[in-house]
């Protein structure tokens, strides 16, 4: 997909900027005129000031950013690898799936954020508990997409493979796996977003570092500008993640 299709042409851009400018001017005006209490909504200039100070002057947010992203990446990689491996095991061994699937479905049904306190007891306030929450989300998402992808193999390909005399591992490597990749990729994209969600959520509970931890401290002391600043940063990270995954997908799956 071209940038033009995603972001629109120049005129669309102009309209978008005008809309945002009007929004922020109104927001600023509502806050300064005390129409709405700034403790509730903060102030755009205050948010910019906060971000500038914490990112470029004290650089404290950079440190938090690295902790959160590090946790997210570790949770994502571990969760994805485990999800793909177990998913492939399910695809190749229906018995294993029959045994484990109901158990996994029950585990997946638990609200994972509710497990965060438990993980904090087990793994402490550091990175471990954050990774555990992120992992528990990513794993199941990637697992189910891997199983769906593995199941989605074209029966004609299997017939062809059998008449060619393909071995079980050849069928898997040359037909099942490549045809599963696009579906697995959808799971990975979602898994990365959920890894971030899990890590930030666990940081909000209790942590030593991270954007989630700073967010909860700021919110507890009614520093609304800071809260908005971090929410803005998090949404930027989310946008970065999905566009990164999109361009990776387009590169790897040119054949689609």
């Amino acid at each position: 997909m071209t940038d033009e299709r995603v972001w629109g042409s120049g005129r669309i851009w102009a309209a978008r900027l005008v809309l945002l400018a009007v929004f922020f001017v109104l927001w600023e005006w509502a806050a300064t005129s005390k129409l709405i209490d700034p403790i509730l909504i903060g102030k755009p200039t205050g948010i910019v000031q906060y971000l500038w100070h914490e990112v470029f002057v004290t650089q404290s947010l950079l440190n938090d950013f690295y902790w959160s992203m590090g946790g997210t990446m570790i949770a994502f990689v571990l969760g994805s690898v485990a999800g793909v491996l177990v998913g492939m095991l399910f695809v190749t061994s229906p018995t294993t799936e029959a045994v484990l699937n109901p158990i996994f479905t029950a585990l997946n049904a638990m609200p994972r954020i509710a497990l965060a306190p438990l993980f904090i007891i087990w793994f402490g306030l550091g990175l471990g508990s954050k990774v555990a929450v992120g992992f528990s989300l990513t794993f199941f998402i990637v697992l189910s997409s891997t199983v769906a992808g593995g199941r989605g193999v074209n029966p004609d390909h299997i017939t062809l493979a059998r008449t060619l005399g393909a071995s079980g591992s050849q069928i898997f490597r040359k037909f099942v796996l490549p045809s599963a990749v696009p579906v697995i990729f959808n799971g990975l994209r979602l898994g990365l977003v959920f890894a971030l969600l899990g890590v930030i959520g666990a940081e909000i509970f209790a942590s030593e570092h991270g954007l989630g931890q700073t967010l909860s401290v700021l919110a507890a002391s009614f520093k609304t500008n800071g809260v908005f600043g971090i929410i803005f940063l998090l949404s930027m990270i989310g946008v970065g993640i999905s566009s990164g995954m999109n361009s990776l997908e387009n590169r790897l799956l040119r054949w689609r």
Partner: protein
Amino acid sequence: MNMAMNPTQMKASAGTVAKPAPGSIIFDKVSVAFEAAKLTAVSEFSLNIAPSEFVSIVGPSGCGKTTLLNFAAGLLPSGAGRGTLLVNGKPPVTGSHDLAYMLARDALAPWRTALGNAELGAEVRGVPAEKRRARAVDLLEKVGLKGFENAYPKALSQGMRQRVALARTFSLDSPILLMDEPFGALDAQTKLQLEDVLLSLWQREQRTVLFITHDLSEAVSMSDRVLVMSSRPGRIIADVPITLGRPRSVRALQKEPHYHELYAQVWSKLEEGLSQ
């Protein structure tokens, strides 16, 4: 069923006494029944296909044509087929290197380029990379796809995709080709072109072809022999030798009177079979 009354049947089964030649396919009193579905797909089917012969089977849908092909390819569940079937002198085995199977749908791998697809069969069968690539490049040229080696299937038309499937089938060294309505999904014009492509490939290499179709004109224009099958349970009701010269051009045949006579002959047999 009054099988014994059928002279064609008698002749075909008499042939099986001879020692099977390499490249031959011999069906001797083959029956296929699917226990689970309580269905007899084929009953006492006998046919002797000589090496490098091009034989087509036509018949109404559900007459068991594809079942016969699947039996020869070793794709039937064990115990479903009875009688003697010898493919290249051996009982059918799944994945036998003696045969190449071409399906009705192209079954191209969308993640592989045309070249990657053309060499897929040989790759699975362990042909060294350099050899199979050279072969695939050559075949893509022969089927008229020179310059499309690096195109992905999504960029190819249906006819082009079936050309790639032809190249994939011919890139295998198997002496026997089994084809299950490979051009069934194509429009009439594309179909004629591809039939000529198939004939030219076959003419060069002289492999045995067992071709399944429900299209009479396709069967008559390409084959040495056309077998007409009755509706289920399928049995042979006619074995018509196609006395047209070789090499042939399917497109040129369209204007040849003898071709139309043969077509009418096969057609009347098929009609007899349906009204029985």
